[in-house]
């Protein structure tokens, strides 16, 4: 699609069909000679880079308002009411949703000031306007726009954002009346559980943030501290103030699992769950649960955005991607980050509150490091690793289960082969395993005693009475955050509140040092605050 930019009354507009614009201005009764075409037709990204042409003002060409054009206008007006508000959508997404007269409708909204039109990929800033990624591929010739074009490989799975496809930021009109009008006295929360003192403190802090415009808070809770319960009261407070809430989390299964829990806690509110295969994508609700990819499809819609597991993929080591999710919140809205291992740049930027202990009032397991400088060679040559028999015998004798984390997919099979020779009920899984979910299920039921896995299971899976062994913990794949997360798989229940964490490494790396230090600091803080015995 090629666009033209023009000025009327010193305001710039973009259009791909001038005839509709003239029709609109004629219908508005807008005549005069302030029309200036500032750029030739070109794809949006190229338009952005072009210098503005100096053009003399012209009179606006008058369009006769015959029945046919009036019908066109009326159709567009009707279609406008169906456009979902507060979204950032690609042209093709809008097309599949509206299908009839969508071009005219979105243009009408643009002329009324309700839509910003941007290129999907900005060549000027070398950035994807949808996901914020700066890894844009080199220019190729594109048959759709006939010009040099680029697409964003990072958000390809949500449809291709190209330099020539328009991306619409559709504004959400502020509801009429003052902010804080329909405040309810009693909340919507119907939850019988109770919070631990540390959770309560964090929860109160989060609620108080809601009363400050544009403020953010990071809740730093150790693995298994109950982050989900902490957000109930802030959500309740936001709903009481008549605000919209979104909870974004990186994983689809978490969204699906969380939806009924939130619905139960807020029985009178509408809760929707958005993920790739969700059918509720276009619905409006008070509480929206979304995967982070779906969260990118919103534009300044929510007053409170809660971002779970901020350090996980796709944000991992990529701070730009926050912006794509932060875009979903109104400029006056609040942001709540939840994490067990917050990245440093976030800690520097945002005030945080810690929950350093779990509900069972026991400290976190501090990793024990065992050195074996021939470790990598031993795994590769399939020769026995000296520490393994001791660990495995203990696990089987005490009737426990264990995660064995390895850095590479190839190692999973090798290690399973080595372990299965001596011990029974050993299995392995990784990101390419088609039976992964089934194996995790069997591990939960205790049919598999020792599960060899890569970092994909570092989050989310909680099983009582487990130990953790990390093979080659000094690998560059494991950073501080993933080491802490993996260590956090132990001691999740009160039956076995601590557990064992063993790092097998050839040497101590910075990541190992920091991970151990982080866990020790958390334990010390908890002790100081009297949260553990």
């Amino acid at each position, binding site marked *: 699609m090629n666009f033209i930019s023009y000025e009327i009354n010193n305001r710039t507009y973009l259009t791909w069909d001038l005839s509709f614009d003239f029709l609109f201005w004629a219908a508005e009764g807008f005549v005069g000679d302030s029309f200036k075409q500032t750029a030739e037709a070109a794809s949006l990204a190229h338009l952005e880079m072009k210098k503005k042409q100096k053009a003399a003002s012209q009179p606006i060409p008058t369009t006769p308002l015959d029945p046919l054009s009036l019908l066109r206008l009326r159709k567009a007006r009707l279609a406008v009411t169906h456009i979902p508000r507060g979204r950032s959508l690609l042209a093709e997404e809008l097309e599949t949703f509206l299908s009839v007269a969508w071009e005219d409708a979105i243009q009408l909204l643009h002329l009324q000031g309700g839509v910003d039109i941007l290129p999907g990929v900005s060549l000027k800033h070398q950035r994807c306007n949808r996901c914020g990624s700066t890894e844009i591929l080199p220019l190729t010739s594109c*048959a759709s726009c006939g010009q040099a074009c680029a697409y964003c*490989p990072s958000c390809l799975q949500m449809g291709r954002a190209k330099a020539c496809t328009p991306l619409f930021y559709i504004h959400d009109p502020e509801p009429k009346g003052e902010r804080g009008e329909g405040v309810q006295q009693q909340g919507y929360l119907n939850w019988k559980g109770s919070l631990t003192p540390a959770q309560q403190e964090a929860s109160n802090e989060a609620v108080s943030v809601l009363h400050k415009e544009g403020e953010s808070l990071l809740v730093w809770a150790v693995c298994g501290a109950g982050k989900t319960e902490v957000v109930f009261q802030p959500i309740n407070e936001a709903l009481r103030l008549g605000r919209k809430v979104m909870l974004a989390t990186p994983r689809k299964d978490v969204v699906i699992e969380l939806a009924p829990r939130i619905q139960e806690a807020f029985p009178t509110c509408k809760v929707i769950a958005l993920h790739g295969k969700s059918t509720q994508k276009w619905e409006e609700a008070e509480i929206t649960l979304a995967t982070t990819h779906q969260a990118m499809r919103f534009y300044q819609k929510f007053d409170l955005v809660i971002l779970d597991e901020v350090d996980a993929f796709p944000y991992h080591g990529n701070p730009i991607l926050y912006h794509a999710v932060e875009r979903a919140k109104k400029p006056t809205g609040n942001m709540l980050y939840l994490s067990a291992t917050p990245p440093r740049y976030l800690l520097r930027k945002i005030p945080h509150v810690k929950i350093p202990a779990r509900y069972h009032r026991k400290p976190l397991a501090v990793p024990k490091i065992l050195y074996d400088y021939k470790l990598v060679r031993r795994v590769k040559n399939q020769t026995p690793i000296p520490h393994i028999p001791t660990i495995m015998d203990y696990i089987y004798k005490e009737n426990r289960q264990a995660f064995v984390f390895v850095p590479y*997919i*190839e190692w999973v099979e090798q290690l399973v082969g080595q372990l299965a020779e001596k011990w029974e009920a050993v299995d392995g899984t990784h990101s390419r395993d088609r039976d992964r979910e089934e194996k995790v299920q069997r591990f939960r039921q205790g049919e598999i005693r020792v599960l060899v896995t890569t970092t994909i299971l570092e989050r989310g899976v909680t099983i009582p009475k487990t130990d953790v062994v990390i093979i080659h913990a000094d690998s560059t794949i494991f950073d501080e955050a993933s080491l802490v997360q993996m260590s956090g798989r132990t001691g999740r229940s009160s039956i076995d509140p601590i557990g064992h964490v063993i790092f097998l490494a050839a040497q101590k790396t910075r990541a190992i040092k920091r991970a151990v230090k982080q866990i020790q600091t958390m334990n010390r803080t908890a002790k100081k605050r009297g949260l553990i015995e």
Partner: protein
Amino acid sequence: MRNALEVLFPMYDKCGFCDRRSYRNGMCKLCLKEVEMIRGSICERCGRPMGETTLCVDCFQRKETYFMCNRSAVLYNDKMKEMLSLYKFRGQETLAYTFSLFLESAYRQYYQRIGFDYITFVPVHEERLKERGFNQAQQLAFQLSLRTKIPVISLLTKTKNTEKQSKKHRRQRLHTLYNAFHLRPFPARIKRVMLIDDVYTTGTTINECARVLNKAGIIVYSLTVAR
């Protein structure tokens, strides 16, 4: 100098499908494991892997065959299906490079001795081209041309906008494609061309293209990524 630099700062390619380090043919070890290369005896006509080197049942039953023969690099298994749909329908254009490496190895294996005048490709209807933004066969042809130094020529246009072939049965395929391709003006002396496409399933598309080219006295050999 360049080698020295490469030793000091090794640049590695990424796998076209996932983001791991590439091992061979622009793919990582794990993805490569799932791709089945076509080796050993094949059908003389269509390049299907078989027990012995004769005609396969499909080629035997086909009434008129206009192409000399077809050769493919890999089997059209689940992995390839996934990769080709990522390339064609989702538009991951970087995969063109990976596939062209497959094509090249098949070219070296089967077609090296045949002197081709040109490489040509299966066209896409203009509307589809606008929608998708690129023609996969054309991209593959260009990439292969860079590696084999045979020039590319666009010989065909598609004048009927047919539905996707992958959604139809064998008989329907032939019916909808009949007269869908037309010849473009071309220089007089063309003897042999290599026709590039992404996948050969029943051979209807290739055969129909070859029929049009045959009429103009051009001998067609075809080369596809998957079979």
